[in-house]
């Protein structure tokens, strides 16, 4: 269908975009469409199980949504059942899913030490890594020192060809060897370079091992900060409430001084101290009766001007 094709084309164009927009079919999820989907599902009469485990062909052959929803107007152009979430078992079968135009495998492997590389350290999770890191660094410097002298060694006569690719797997061999892999003794610097490479890769690997620890510490400090923020907010709210209550108390005091004829059992006081249910009775009783103290409008204005909340 056309909007799916347009969506795919747009998606492919945006693959290189660092902030891609979501796939275009998000616009299908209008409240109206969702309501239609609900109606369709009811009409179909199948339970939730069927919806989740239906086959592809059930969708296309059996569901004729125009017929079923014939009394609704403005049906969308795509089968409404596409609004359902994608089938997890199908995704798992295919063992990959596409996200923003790229395919990702479903069976994610966590980082594994590259095979074929000598592991120069032991990775028990409890032990301290730092001396080993230091050892690696010192070894690296030593190897480099050796390299400097190796590099200055005279080349044995007749040794014209560059080293074979099987010995040094850095890039391609430009001269194109004619299949002669067993070249007599490898130059010293080649071996040294390989050793340096091993060292550096091990070093990098060990540094990465620190990342989970770092993540945990970050999490911990984030939680701490969150707790403190909450406490701070609670304190502020309580402070504000205290202020307000004080103002209220002042107001009451003023009210009682302004209206000395009022006893404690006036409807107004009742209302202040009671719940909102009492509020209604207070208001009802104070409405038509004249037992309400005469609070003039000047008093109210004066009060509103001095109460600074």
């Amino acid at each position: 269908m056309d909007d799916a094709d347009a969506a795919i084309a747009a998606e492919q164009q945006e693959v290189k975009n660092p902030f891609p927009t979501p796939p275009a079919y998000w616009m299908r999820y209008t409240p109206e469409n969702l309501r239609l989907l609900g109606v369709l599902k009811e009409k179909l009469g199948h339970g939730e199980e069927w919806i989740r485990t239906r086959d592809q062909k059930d969708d296309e052959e059996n569901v004729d949504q125009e017929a079923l929803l014939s009394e609704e107007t403005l049906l969308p152009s795509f089968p409404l059942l596409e609004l359902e979430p994608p089938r997890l078992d199908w995704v798992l079968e295919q063992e990959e899913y596409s996200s923003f135009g790229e395919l990702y495998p479903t069976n994610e492997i966590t980082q594994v030490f590259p095979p074929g590389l000598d592991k120069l350290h032991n990775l028990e999770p409890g032990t301290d890594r730092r001396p080993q890191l230091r050892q690696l660094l010192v070894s690296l410097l030593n190897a480099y020192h050796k390299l400097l002298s190796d590099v200055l060694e005279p080349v044995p006569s007749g040794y014209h060809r560059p080293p074979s690719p099987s010995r040094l797997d850095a890039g391609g061999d430009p001269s194109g060897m004619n299949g002669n892999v067993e070249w007599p003794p490898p130059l010293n610097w080649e071996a040294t370079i390989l050793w340096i490479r091993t060292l550096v890769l091990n070093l990098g690997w060990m540094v990465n091992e620190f990342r989970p620890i770092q993540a945990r510490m970050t999490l911990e400090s984030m939680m701490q900060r969150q707790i403190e923020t909450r406490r701070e907010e609670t304190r502020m709210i309580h402070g504000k409430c205290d202020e307000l209550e004080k103002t209220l108390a002042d107001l009451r005091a003023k009210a009682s001084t302004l209206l000395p004829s009022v006893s404690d059992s006036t409807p107004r006081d009742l209302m202040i101290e009671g719940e909102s249910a009492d509020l209604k009775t207070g208001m009802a009783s104070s409405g038509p009766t004249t037992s309400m103290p005469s609070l003039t409008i000047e008093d109210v204005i004066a009060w509103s001007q001095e109460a600074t909340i």
Partner: protein
Amino acid sequence: MPGLEDEQSVNMDKLTQLQDCIEQLLLIMKLAVVQLVQRSDFKQVSPDIPVTKSRPKDKIDSPQKFEENKRELVADLVRKAKQIELIIESLPAPEPEQAQAARFEQLEQEMQKVNEEYQAAVERAKRLHKEITAIFRELTNAENTTF
């Protein structure tokens, strides 16, 4: 837990710093090797064997330049290696998992308690708000009925 706050801001970069420093160290190494291999002229080693070849002058550093570069490279190398060592030193010592897990649990409980207190405060504010609006309403109503 010593200074978790500043650890959080600096630790985030430490590992990246470490990785960057390692890269820079490698770069310095490479530059030094290139210096030795590609930018030096032939030198007479033995008094009997004359220098028969020489490299084109534009690809060569003069002896003074060579000395300079050498000093600079060596200084950089040593400085970078020292930096790396310092950073490694400052990385956190490992901690047994249980202690950390216990800390996390404690943090969570504290979090919940603080959240409850916060809720209580919000409730109090709401109640006060209700009271005050009631009073206002009553005031305005009262003044209406007094007319």
